[in-house]
C-alpha cells in the first residue's frame, strides 16, 4: 500500500529488508568516512561544550563530566538526519524510485538511519573514551547495562521526531529550518545545553514531561548512575513508549496526507 503501513509485509521479510538496506548503506557510507567524521565532531560538540562550561561552574561535581561523556555517546548513537536522507528525495523527486519498490518506503529510511548510526557510534566511542579519560570519568557496568534499553528507545524516539519533522517536506521547502528548530528544542530541553537537573524549576518540570529528555538526557543520566532504583527507570521507559506511540501515529497521518498531496495534487 501507499502508506507507511507495514501490515501487508511479513515481519521476517521486513527485518531482512532493513538488514539489507543497512548493509547497502554501510557500504555506501564507507566511501565517505571523512564526512561521517565531521558528523561525529558536530554531534560531540554540544556535549563537549556543555562539559567544559558546567565543569567550570561546578568544578567539584563529578556528575557533570560523567553525564556529559555518557550524553556524548547517547547523542552519536541516536543521531538522525532524515531531513537530509528522506526530505531531499521529496525535493528532487527521487522518492518516486522508492515508491515503486516492492517494500514500504520507511524501510529505506530506517536502514539509512541505522547505517549512519553504526558509523557514528564506531567513530564516537574512541572520542567518548578519550573525553572520559581526560576528565577521569568512571562508569559502573550495572548502570550502563540498565541504560541500554533506554538508549535503544531514545534512538527510536529521536528517529520518530526527526522523521516527523522531515515529512513536512511534502508541504514546504524549508524543512531544514524546521529540523533546525527541532534540534534547538532537543538541545535545550533534552539536556545538552544543561543537564535537566540544572534548569530552573518550572522549565525542569516541563522538560520532564516533554519527549526531549527521554531522547538524550534520561539515557545519559541512567548510564551516569544518576537515576537510582527500578521505578524511575520503568517510568522513563513508559514515557519513551508513550512519546514513540504519539510520534509514530502522527508520522503515519502526516505520511498519508503527504503522499496524497504528492500523488494526487501532483506536488
Amino acid at each position: 500500500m501507499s502508506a507507511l503501513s507495514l501490515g501487508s509485509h511479513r515481519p521476517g521479510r521486513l527485518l531482512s529488508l532493513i538488514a539489507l538496506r543497512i548493509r547497502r548503506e554501510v557500504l555506501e557510507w564507507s566511501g565517505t568516512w571523512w564526512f561521517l567524521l565531521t558528523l561525529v565532531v558536530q554531534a560531540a560538540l554540544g556535549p563537549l561544550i556543555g562539559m567544559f562550561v558546567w565543569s567550570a561552574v561546578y568544578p567539584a561535581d563529578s556528575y557533570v563530566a560523567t553525564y556529559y561523556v555518557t550524553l556524548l555517546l547517547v547523542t552519536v548513537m541516536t543521531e538522525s538526519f532524515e531531513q537530509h536522507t528522506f526530505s531531499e528525495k521529496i525535493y528532487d523527486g527521487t522518492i518516486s524510485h522508492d515508491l515503486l519498490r516492492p517494500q514500504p518506503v520507511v524501510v529505506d529510511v530506517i536502514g539509512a538511519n541505522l547505517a549512519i548510526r553504526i558509523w557514528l557510534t564506531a567513530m564516537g566511542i574512541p572520542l567518548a573514551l578519550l573525553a572520559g579519560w581526560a576528565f577521569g570519568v568512571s562508569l559502573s557496568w550495572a548502570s550502563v547495562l540498565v541504560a541500554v534499553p533506554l538508549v535503544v528507545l531514545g534512538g527510536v524516539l529521536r528517529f520518530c521526531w526527526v522523521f516527523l519533522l522531515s515529512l513536512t517536506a511534502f508541504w514546504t521547502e524549508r524543512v531544514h529550518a524546521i529540523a533546525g528548530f527541532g534540534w534547538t528544542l532537543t538541545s535545550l530541553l533534552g539536556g545538552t545545553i544543561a543537564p535537566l537537573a540544572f534548569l530552573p524549576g518550572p522549565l525542569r518540570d516541563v522538560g520532564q514531561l516533554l519527549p526531549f529528555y527521554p531522547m538524550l538526557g534520561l539515557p545519559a543520566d541512567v548510564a551516569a548512575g544518576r537515576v537510582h532504583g527500578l521505578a524511575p527507570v520503568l517510568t522513563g521507559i513508559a514515557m519513551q513508549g508513550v512519546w514513540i506511540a504519539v510520534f509514530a501515529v502522527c508520522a503515519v497521518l502526516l505520511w498519508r496526507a503527504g503522499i496524497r498531496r504528492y500523488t494526487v495534487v501532483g506536488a
Partner: protein
Amino acid sequence: MTAVVVEDLCMTYRAPVRESGWKATLGSVFNRQYRDVPAVQHVSFALRPGEVVGFIGPNGAGKTTTMKILSGLLHATSGQVRVLGHSPWQRRSDFLRRIAFIRGSQPVGGSQELTVLDTLRYQRLLYEVPPAEFQQNLDELTALLELGELLPRQLRALSLGEKMRAGLALSLVYRPEVMFLDEPTLGLDVTGATTMRRFVAQYAERTGATVLLTSHYMADVATLCPRLVLIDKGRIQYDGKLDELAAKLSPYKLVRLTAPGADERRLREAGELVESSDGTWVLRVPRADVARTTARLLTELDVADLSVEEAPLEAVIDQAYREGVG
C-alpha cells in the same frame, strides 16, 4: 485478455495562482487561490500482452502523467486503470514486482556510491529473484547491453548512456511483464540510442513483455512500435497503426528518381517537384496516382533508378501536433 486497461482517465492538477504585486501577495497569505490544470482528459485505451506501443505527443500533452498513473506514482482524479489486474495507485508489492517504469531523465535511482553489480544483487534480494534465475537474467542482460565492463563501476561514475544501460538492467533483472519507458533515448548519442532500441525490441520479443514507450524521437517509435497512441492537450488524438496515421495525414508519397537527361517540364507534369540535384528528382504525388505516375515516368524517361517513399515521419507527426489528426 489485456495487460493494461485505461477507461475515461482524467487527471487534474491544482496549481496555486496569484496576481503580481504586494496586495495580491499579502492577500494570498490569507486566501490562497488555485486553478485547476487538466493534464489528462477522458483518456481510454487498452494494451494486449506483448504489445509494443508508442505513446507520443508534444511537450505537456499528458504522456508522463499517464505513465505515472499507470505505474502507480499518481492517483488519477477519475476514471479506471487496471494494469495486470491491479489498481496501480495501491502500489501493492505483487504489482510492483511485475512492472518497471524507466525514465530517461532519471534512469537510476537510489544510492550512487555502489557498483552496478552490488546494486543488481540488491535488486535480486528486493524482488526475491531465485539465484539461478538471477544469474541467467544477468548473463543475458550483460550480453545484450554490453554490461561486462560496467559491473564493477560505481553508478555515480557512469556516463548518461551507461547509466541508461545500467538502469535498464536494474529494472529488467526481475523480468517485469509490463514496461513503461519514458523517453528512454533522451540525451543518448546515435550508437546509444540504437543499442537501446535493439535491446527493447529483443527484450519484448524474448519475454513477451508489454511495452508502452514515450519518445520525441520518431526513430524510436518507427523502429519499435507498430501501434501508436497520439495524445495532445490531455486527449487521445489517434490510436492505431503507424503507417495508417501517415496515410491519413499525408495523402502524398514521394517518388525519387534518377534520370540525368530528364526534361524538368515533363517531370512537373507528373507531380509537384520538391527537390532536385545532380539528375536526381523528388516528386510529391497523390497516393492514388503513384502507380500510374511511376509507370508513366518509367515509360517516358530514361530512368536509372526509382523509388517510392513515405513522407518523413517527423513531418507527419509535426503536422499532427500542429493541425491535429482530424
